[in-house]
């Protein structure tokens, strides 16, 4: 029973990572936009949803007590607006300016999470975020399974929608821009507009993912949205296979499994005083793994398959 509940908990967290990966896949996998500020989009979604849905608290702005669904929608909208602002600023410039700008956004938002205490609760974060199916909280297994079903449904819905989009005329135009911008432009497609749309869509998905995660855990703090999160998500997408939505989900589950297993090992084997040091080896491994995949298997576990249209069967 306990193992089952733990497995459900583990998979629910993996599903929230898979949601982030799906958002990143729209930006990077389909469109080739390099976002180094994943943590900012996820964190923004988490904070917006928390502020919208938590009960009123003294000394803190917000606490509107809205239903969870409203929090999710608000989070997706906030992620989209942030992406629109960053995209409008940099997408017309050279491609690595977007990377630098998103990196800057991650630093700046981390400062806001830390220091805008009346809004974000400062270093202590926001607690008592309403959890879905809170009525079941006493029965660990039922609570874990219903939450897994919910987060799994989010991933499935996004997967189906994004797959359909990838096979739509819009998805084809997006890949055309990624592969050969000049050719796409000469056929009347606007690369800037398509890139911006994809960046906003990805930002919305990441904001939603942040909200789903925050409501499942029930508590958020600035330390959850450090650059390490961005690194983890990138490792997930690149390992799973960028450009492939199934790869994004697979990568999230595999990397999260490795991460959780090594964390458990460290907690078991390493003496308490040395644990922080041993955990830094986890990050070394992620960084090295990211480079190694780029060098030796850039297509990842599940390579992108060339989809033309849902009306055409797959090419041989």
């Amino acid at each position, binding site marked *: 029973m306990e193992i089952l509940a733990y497995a459900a908990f583990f998979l629910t967290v993996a599903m929230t990572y898979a949601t982030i990966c799906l958002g990143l896949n729209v930006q990077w996998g389909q469109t*080739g936009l*390099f976002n*180094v500020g994943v943590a900012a989009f996820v964190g923004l979604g988490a904070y917006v949803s928390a502020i919208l849905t938590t009960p009123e608290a003294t000394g803190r702005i917000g606490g509107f007590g809205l239903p969870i669904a409203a929090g999710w929608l608000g989070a997706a909208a906030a992620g989209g607006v942030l992406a629109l602002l960053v995209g409008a*600023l*940099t997408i017309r*410039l*050279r*491609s*690595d*300016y977007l*990377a*630098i*700008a998103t*990196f*800057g*956004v991650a*630093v*700046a938002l981390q*400062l806001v999470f*830390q*220091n805008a205490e009346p809004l974000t609760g400062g270093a202590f974060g926001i607690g008592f975020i309403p959890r879905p199916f809170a009525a079941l909280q006493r029965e660990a297994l039922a609570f874990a399974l219903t939450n897994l079903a919910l987060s799994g449904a989010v991933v499935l819905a996004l997967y189906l929608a994004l797959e359909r989009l990838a096979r739509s005329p819009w998805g084809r135009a997006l890949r055309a821009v990624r592969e050969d911008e000049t050719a796409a432009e000469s056929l009347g497609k606007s690369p800037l507009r398509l890139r911006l749309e994809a960046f906003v869509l990805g930002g919305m998905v990441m904001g939603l993912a942040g909200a789903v995660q925050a409501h499942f855990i029930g508590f958020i703090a600035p330390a959850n949205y450090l*650059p*390490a999160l961005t*690194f983890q998500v*990138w*490792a997930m997408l*690149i390992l799973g296979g960028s450009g492939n939505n199934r790869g994004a989900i697979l990568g999230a589950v595999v990397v999260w499994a490795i991460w959780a297993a090594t964390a458990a090992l460290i907690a078991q084997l390493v003496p308490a005083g040395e644990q*922080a*040091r*041993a955990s*830094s*080896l*986890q*990050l*070394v491994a*992620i*960084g*090295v*793994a*990211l*480079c190694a995949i*780029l*060098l030796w298997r*850039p297509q990842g576990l599940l390579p992108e398959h060339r989809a033309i249209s849902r009306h055409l069967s797959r090419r041989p």
Partner: protein
Amino acid sequence: MTLQILVNGLVAGTTIGLGAIGLSLTYSILRFANFTQGDLIAWGAYLTLAVAGAIGGLLAGLGPAGPLAPFSFGWTLPVALLGGMALTVLLALGLDAVLFARLRARGADAIILVMAGFGASMALRAGLEFIFTSAPAYFTRELQIARPLGAGMRATPDQLLVLGLTAALVVALHLLVTRTATGRAMRAVGESPALAAVYGLDVAGVVRITWVIGASLACVAGTMSGLLVQIRPTMGFDLLLPLFAATILGGIGSIPGAMIGGLVIGLSESLAVQVLGAEWRAAAAFVVLVVVLLVRPSGLFGRGA
């Protein structure tokens, strides 16, 4: 008090400027935004510290070396800095050989190199935390009294030395890039590696020299910052946004531009600390970056983005 903001800003700006020159050179000649530059700065500081420790250990029999008046450090630090620079250069060249050169040889897009650098920077930074732990380290335990400079400004001798050394380095580098055959070759490769190779330039050699200069400057910047403030594994990563903001503000590839950019960022950080409080220091670089991207994305001395 208000003029003191100027001194603090200039001193912080020298570290940013030196690091930004390295970033700007690799950006214009190797043609990618190198996210490992910050971590080369941190590694430079730690490698200098390790060499200084080794020298101190070897010469322990000679009795403790006193500080070189009026500075806070003894003669081992300048010697250790040379050793640290050599080791940082080896680290950068090694990284290029195992990672970036292979990706370049495969004809990978610049953005793939950016991503590889992003992964490597994580590994480098966490590696420092593993080896040296996240506790801060110091080059010297000596305390320095800030001396009055007039007009209500104060600075320690160490700070003045850093300002002078930086000015000398910037002038020397600018002359190297604009007046020598090596500099001409570097700019040619920056324009077009293929064309430079056709003209018989040693492109691999130019790539090496670029890393040598970039990594040496990173080590100097890290050591200066370590001397004036402290050494931490995250010091380089925290500098990364100021470095990028300074590089883009100055115009990619421009050495005076990167230095001026660094000083502007240092001054605006110092202003932000004064006006908003120390916890908002890092926001200054972000604001400058956004303004530059909005108003003049090619930077002050750039040739168009």
